[in-house]
């Protein structure tokens, strides 16, 4: 018996280091589209390079409220992942729910990153009350996609090969009119069935007027309601004048653009892979994407950031070995985010966007300069993707964009909905 026992102990002591040889990192993300395919490639590459040391075990979950609910509930009982993707705009709510672990200055030093590695707004978005809660991986703004062939026909391509004469609301509307008069079915498409999605454009146009959305208790201070109504009015005018189709949902928007029925589309950079793939198959015209033109006083575009966060697993803090493994995963991803740029997203790490390879990448390199003019969601527990703020926009602006109510009424409704949040 005693011999059996000592044999078991011996076996266990051999087995133990072997079991610990590879540190596993449990990874959750919400990347289900073309970018998800690219993320899987990055994970595979990491696992191949770190064979025997670190292994990422990745799971992709449903985007939006389901993902964040699962993270919140599982972290509360210590069953969360070791690392996960997180929208920067959702961080204030996560911090209030005690779901995230702080990223310390030591952690950043280990990864060789500093605040200066990122654009100012992107860095600011992952910090709450002076503490950092995530490492930015990318910036994903909305951009203006264009059909170069159709624009050329209407004389809207400049000498540099990029769309020209679009700055200023009057000029832009004149261009839309020209495109419509030249026989295009539509001049511009963007999602008009979901005010929730269109909020990205509306928020950009609000910012272009120097406006902003405030915070709890004072959501639209000063003359912001007027500016917001003006921003909504831009889209409702497009719909009224027949430039932009009404009540059009997301997939139809992409279909109208890719089938050549509309020369312009406002959408997120995450549709870049769709265009690249179609073009490769020879099913697409010459296309490009640029920063939103300046329709009002200054350039400004809505953006959010996919970042990496470490959940605060209640009762199960990370061991130093696990933590080191997680940091090396984040470091690897940040350093290899050039490949991530093929998904359209702008790598957050400036060292990557400054490389010659990135600067040669089109149309990414053309719109990447917008990171100097980006605006993130207001820092509130009620803001961020799939948040009450987005929902309030969905309810108020869907009706206004399609002419069921006027923009001023819609802004009043939105303000009332936001003021009622508690």
């Amino acid at each position: 018996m005693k011999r059996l026992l000592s044999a078991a102990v011996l076996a266990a002591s051999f087995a133990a280091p072997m079991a610990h040889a590879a540190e596993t990192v449990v990874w959750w993300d919400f990347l289900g589209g073309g970018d998800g395919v690219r993320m899987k490639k990055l994970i595979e590459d990491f696992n191949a390079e770190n064979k025997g040391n670190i292994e990422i075990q990745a799971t992709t979950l449903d985007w939006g409220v389901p993902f964040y609910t699962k993270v919140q509930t599982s972290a509360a009982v210590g069953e969360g992942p070791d690392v996960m993707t997180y929208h920067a705009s959702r961080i204030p709510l996560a911090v209030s729910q005690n779901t995230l672990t702080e990223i310390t200055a030591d952690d950043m030093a280990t990864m060789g990153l500093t605040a200066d590695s990122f654009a100012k707004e992107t860095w600011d978005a992952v910090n709450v009350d002076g503490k950092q809660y995530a490492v930015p991986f990318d910036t994903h703004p909305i951009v203006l996609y264009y059909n170069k062939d159709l624009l050329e026909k209407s004389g809207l391509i400049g000498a540099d090969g990029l769309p020209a004469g679009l700055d200023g609301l009057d000029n832009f509307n004149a261009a839309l009119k020209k495109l419509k008069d030249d026989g295009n079915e539509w001049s511009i498409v963007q999602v008009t069935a979901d005010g929730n999605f269109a909020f990205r454009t509306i928020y950009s146009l609000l910012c272009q007027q120097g406006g902003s959305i405030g915070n709890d208790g004072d959501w639209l201070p000063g003359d912001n309601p007027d500016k917001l109504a003006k921003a909504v009015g831009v889209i409702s005018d497009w719909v009224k004048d027949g430039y932009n189709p009404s009540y059009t949902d997301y997939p139809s928007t992409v279909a109208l653009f890719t089938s050549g029925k509309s020369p312009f589309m406002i959408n997120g950079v995450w549709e870049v892979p769709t265009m690249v793939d179609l073009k490769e198959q020879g099913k697409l015209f010459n296309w490009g994407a640029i920063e939103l033109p300046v329709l009002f006083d200054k350039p400004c575009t809505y953006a959010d950031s996919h970042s990496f966060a470490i959940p605060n697993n209640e009762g199960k803090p990370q061991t130093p070995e696990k933590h080191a493994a997680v940091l090396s995963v984040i470091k690897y991803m940040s350093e290899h985010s050039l490949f991530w740029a093929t998904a359209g997203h702008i790598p957050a790490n400036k060292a990557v966007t400054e490389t010659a390879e990135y600067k040669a990448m089109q149309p990414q390199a053309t719109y990447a300069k917008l990171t100097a003019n980006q605006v993130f969601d207001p820092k509130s527990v009620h803001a961020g993707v799939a948040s009450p703020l987005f929902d309030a926009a969905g309810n108020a602006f869907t009706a206004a964009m399609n002419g069921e109510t006027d923009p001023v009424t819609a802004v009043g409704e939105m303000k009332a909905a936001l003021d009622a949040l508690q």
Partner: protein
Amino acid sequence: MLRNRRSDILVAYLLTAPFIAVYAWLFLWPTIQMVMLSFTDAPLIGAGKSVGLSNYTRMFADPVFHKAVWNTAYFVALTVIPGTAIALLIALMVARLSGWLQSLVLAAFFLPYILPVTVVYVIWDWLTNVQFGMMQGLIEWVTGRPVNIWRTVPWFMPGVAIITIWWTNGFSILLFLAGLRNIPRDLYEAAALDGATRWQMFCRITWPLIWPITVLCLTIQLILQLKIFDQVYLFAMGGRTQATMVLVQYIFEQAFQKNAGGYAATIAVALFVIVVAFSILQFQILRIRGQR
């Protein structure tokens, strides 16, 4: 044979004990906890402090809650009785077929019932797409222009109701068909000999004998439709969710999106009371009707 009644009772208790224990643990205890939660300001996870009746006063003054109650009631009115009537009609027609043809037609009506709600959503969202949907031809013929049903508030609930009837009707048809088969054929033969018309046969034989099945269908439908959530959530996503809000969706929104567990529990208690009240009411009314 005489047996000891007391030991019988003991055995009965012993045999039902596992069920009662599980039922109390998994159903009664959570229900009690939900009621207790409604008196607190708890977030989705963790405890909150007691706030007395303030969740209830807030709920009764909440315009979105009123809207949700109204929309849920409207949806129930649009689906329960019309859906059951349509199921009965289809069952009567299917009953007249026989052999493999009957099985085939029945399968065709039952097929949608086995689809998950997401598939139902994708099919219909596609069919009714305002730019590319096949049904827009029909809609344009009626209204003169394409209509996005899921963003036009007056169209929304009737639209979801039609899809729900299409989706869930197979089950009611199956129940009705089973009921129709249980009616002895000689009753109809005797009636035919007495010169009864088809309509008289339906009113005097089929309808009274199928009544218990009708009650069953109506009760199942009522409870099911009061809990409407998935279809409305999917079709309204991103758009005018407040205008088309239903009760379970509002519970979801408060608990999971707004992190207000206490208030969500309050709405859940309200829904619980409504379901219980409606079920008792319907059961009583249908019983009186059945006894006549």
